[in-house]
């Protein structure tokens, strides 16, 4: 049996089982039949096992360079290094969908075995929906639409190898799976929301049950975005990390809406408000994950014409349309049952700020969506080609981002239900003073531009709110439980992870904001043509050109420049290169980076003497604080993890409530 037979059979076996499981789950809900539920549960296990087997077959085919499979022939070659061969599973469309289906099957099995125990009816309905999605993916994988095991005919002696950009950097091992995990895990909150609508539940059980899924999905999506921009920085060699490329926008949009959702969830939990709104946000997030897949996979954003050339484009578009129409229809149908109180009633309250924040997030998403799709529609309707790029997005999104930064400092500082003047004063004195300090720091550092200075002021403002919250928490625990500060700090994160993990996330966002603002405002860029032994200056650094060198690797040829970066206490060798792959017409630039906590020296080999190696054109960028962008992303991830971890059960406080220690009151200001 060949790998192709094994994989294709596994998928063909999984399809009827998924259909059966979906039907069994529907029957279990309709007839309240426990045996049908048991049957659906085992179906999820079998579906997971068979899709796992198909992934195994694909990996086996890749690792043994089995070019009788078209996907392997197109995305792998004999000389592809082992590491990049293994991760070629997500180098192309069909493999990505296979991985996607695997993650979905895993999440479905989790819901089947764990979810249905807590909320039998709701989770079983969600299970039917999730299995329905699996049926969709299995259908496209067992038909020519996206069959990963399509045979190559004739079988080539060697494959084409992965896209050069995808075999240039180990970060490629992380970026796509993180995004897929984020995308797919959001199916669970969506399925529960739809299940709740179908059953006509008025409560927020769906939302509480899937809070953690939403948070983990959001965190992974965010990490995927940061890793993607890091990859772009380290591989694409243009000296930037975010270009507002449609593919980047596709990942950003669901993240933006999910961020709004994670906040508005709290309003529903605390005040039973925003029910319809939360359902709409979940549907929008999920729809945007599908739209993202459609945009990246159908090729529609590069040219409208490539859309009709692949079968996957129309299929995904139909899937997206079906999801949107059904969800919106369900929400409208159930609207009367979702009726709620007519307003918030307290302008200076946390819930009011969260709502305003939601509006800004949605406006930011609408802008990205419009800017990404407008050229597509314009070309389809009028044939006119036009570009919407970084200048547009920067101009619209930067003010919105600053508004969000401001709200991030205000929201958590306001109590639920409204604040008194005294509370406002108590909460905002230190942060406002910190904002002034931030503006002063920006000016002292010689940073230019109103937006940059404002970013510093707001970043310090938010950082101060976070520090203030932690300081108060630590002090309160010290007074109440006699814990030393370090212990109290850990206990805050462990016992109230949702709240304090959230503050850690905010701190990470502050770091990211500072890194972006500084690197955008203060990058020095120099380009010069040098002879061997010659040198150039960029800011405080001297870059000396040693020589041009060649290197032959099995899968590519390299030309690189030996450079020495000196200055500012740094002495480092870097090698910006141009890589030539047999399957690429253009040389792929690969920057040489001397990273540092203060700034990165980023070098690019732009051009060189192809005849005599007597000159090379070197472009140097000195980019301040770029490393902090990745670090900030990591802090956000850690914060999300802290917030998602299960918290230890609290001891019942009721018995002690009567005897509340007097110091606790005293500890408050």
């Amino acid at each position, binding site marked *: 049996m060949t790998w192709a037979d094994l994989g294709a059979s596994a998928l063909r076996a999984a399809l009827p089982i998924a259909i059966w499981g979906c039907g069994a789950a529907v029957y279990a809900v309709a007839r309240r039949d426990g045996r049908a539920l048991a049957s659906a549960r085992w179906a999820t296990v079998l579906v997971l096992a068979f899709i796992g087997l198909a992934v195994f077959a694909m990996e086996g085919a890749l690792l043994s360079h089995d070019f009788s499979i078209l996907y392997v022939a197109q995305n792998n070659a004999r000389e592809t290094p082992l590491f990049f061969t293994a991760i070629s599973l997500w180098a192309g469309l069909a493999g990505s969908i296979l991985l996607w289906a695997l993650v979905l099957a895993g999440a479905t099995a989790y819901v089947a075995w764990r979810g249905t125990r807590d909320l039998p009816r709701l989770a079983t309905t969600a299970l039917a929906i999730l299995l329905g999605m699996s049926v969709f993916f299995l259908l496209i994988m067992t038909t020519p639409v996206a069959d990963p095991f399509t045979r190559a005919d004739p079988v080539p002696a060697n494959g084409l190898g992965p896209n050069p950009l995808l075999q240039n950097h180990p970060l490629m091992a992380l970026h796509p799976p993180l995004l897929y995990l984020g995308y797919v895990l959001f199916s669970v909150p969506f399925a529960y929301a739809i299940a709740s609508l179908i059953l006509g539940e008025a409560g927020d059980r769906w939302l509480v049950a899937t809070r953690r899924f939403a948070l983990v999905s959001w965190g992974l999506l965010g990490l995927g975005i940061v890793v993607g921009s890091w990859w772009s920085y380290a591989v694409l060699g*243009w000296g930037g990390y975010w270009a507002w490329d449609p593919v980047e926008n596709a990942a950003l949009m669901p993240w933006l809406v999910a961020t709004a959702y994670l906040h508005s969830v709290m309003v529903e939990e605390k005040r039973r408000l925003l029910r319809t709104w939360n359902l709409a946000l979940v549907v929008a997030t999920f729809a945007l994950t599908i739209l993202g897949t459609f945009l990246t996979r159908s090729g529609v954003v590069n040219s409208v014409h490539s859309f009709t050339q692949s079968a996957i484009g129309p299929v995904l578009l139909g899937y997206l349309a079906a999801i949107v129409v059904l969800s919106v229809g369900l929400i409208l149908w159930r609207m009367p049952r979702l009726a709620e109180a007519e307003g918030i009633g307290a302008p200076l309250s946390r819930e009011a700020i969260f709502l305003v924040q939601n509006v800004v997030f949605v406006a930011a998403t609408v802008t990205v969506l419009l800017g990404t799709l407008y050229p597509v529609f314009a070309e389809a309707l009028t044939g006119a080609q036009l570009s*919407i790029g970084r200048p547009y997005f920067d101009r619209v999104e930067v003010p919105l981002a600053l508004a969000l930064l401001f709200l991030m400092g205000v929201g958590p500082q306001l109590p639920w239900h409204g604040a008194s003047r005294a509370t406002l004063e108590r909460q905002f004195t230190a942060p406002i003073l910190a904002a002034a300090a931030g*503006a002063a720091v920006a000016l002292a550092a010689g940073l230019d531009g109103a937006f940059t200075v404002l970013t510093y002021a707001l970043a310090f403002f938010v950082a101060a709110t976070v520090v203030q919250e932690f300081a108060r928490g630590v002090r309160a625990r010290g007074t109440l439980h006699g814990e030393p500060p370090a212990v109290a700090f850990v206990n805050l994160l462990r016992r109230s992870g949702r709240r304090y993990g959230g503050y850690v996330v905010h701190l990470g966002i502050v770091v990211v904001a500072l890194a972006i603002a500084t690197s955008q405002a203060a990058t020095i860029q120099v380009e010069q043509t040098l002879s061997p032994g010659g040198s150039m200056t960029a800011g405080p650094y001297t870059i000396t050109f040693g020589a041009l060198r060649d290197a032959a690797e099995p899968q590519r040829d390299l030309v690189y420049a030996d450079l020495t970066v000196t200055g500012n206490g740094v002495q480092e060798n870097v090698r910006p290169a141009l890589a030539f792959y047999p399957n690429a017409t253009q040389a792929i630039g690969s920057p040489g980076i001397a990273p540092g906590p203060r700034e990165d020296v980023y070098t690019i080999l732009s051009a060189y003497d192809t005849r005599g190696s007597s000159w090379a054109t070197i472009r140097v960028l000195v980019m301040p604080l770029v490393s902090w962008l990745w670090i900030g992303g990591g802090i956000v991830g850690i914060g999300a993890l802290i917030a998602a971890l299960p918290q230890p059960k609290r001891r019942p406080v009721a018995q002690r409530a009567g005897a509340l220690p007097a110091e606790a009151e005293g500890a408050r200001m």
Partner: protein
Amino acid sequence: MSGRRLAMLVAVLAVAGAVAWSALPRPETQTERVDRIASQLRCVVCQGLSVRDSPSETARQMRAVVSQRVGEGRTDRQIFDEFRDAYGDWIILSPPLLGWTGLIWLVPVAALLLGLLLAVRWIRAGPPPPKADPSPADLAMLRERAAREEALD
């Protein structure tokens, strides 16, 4: 006015002053002008990168053209028009405010304003949050919550 409030007021004014000061227009050097214009032009062989950002040979040549035109003393408009005549509207990365493309500038602003209007109306509507007399059961629950939150606040 208390000392705290005075301090806050001074700090807010300081931030506003710093932002306003850094927003003042500064004379643009020739390189800065070339960079600004290049950042608005699409590198024709790249995927959506601007002429300023792209490291490609084509972008370098386009940049050289911009630099030359700036040196000749052409206005921004003349330079953009020259590229537009050669490549079409597609070459400009930021669509014009006039005409149909004005929509993409208008819609975000309209969406934000409409959203804020609805949100503010909804925030102000409705009864003030519940402060009625709680039942004994509510009271016990509130007391528990207060104790818990105080332990953490």
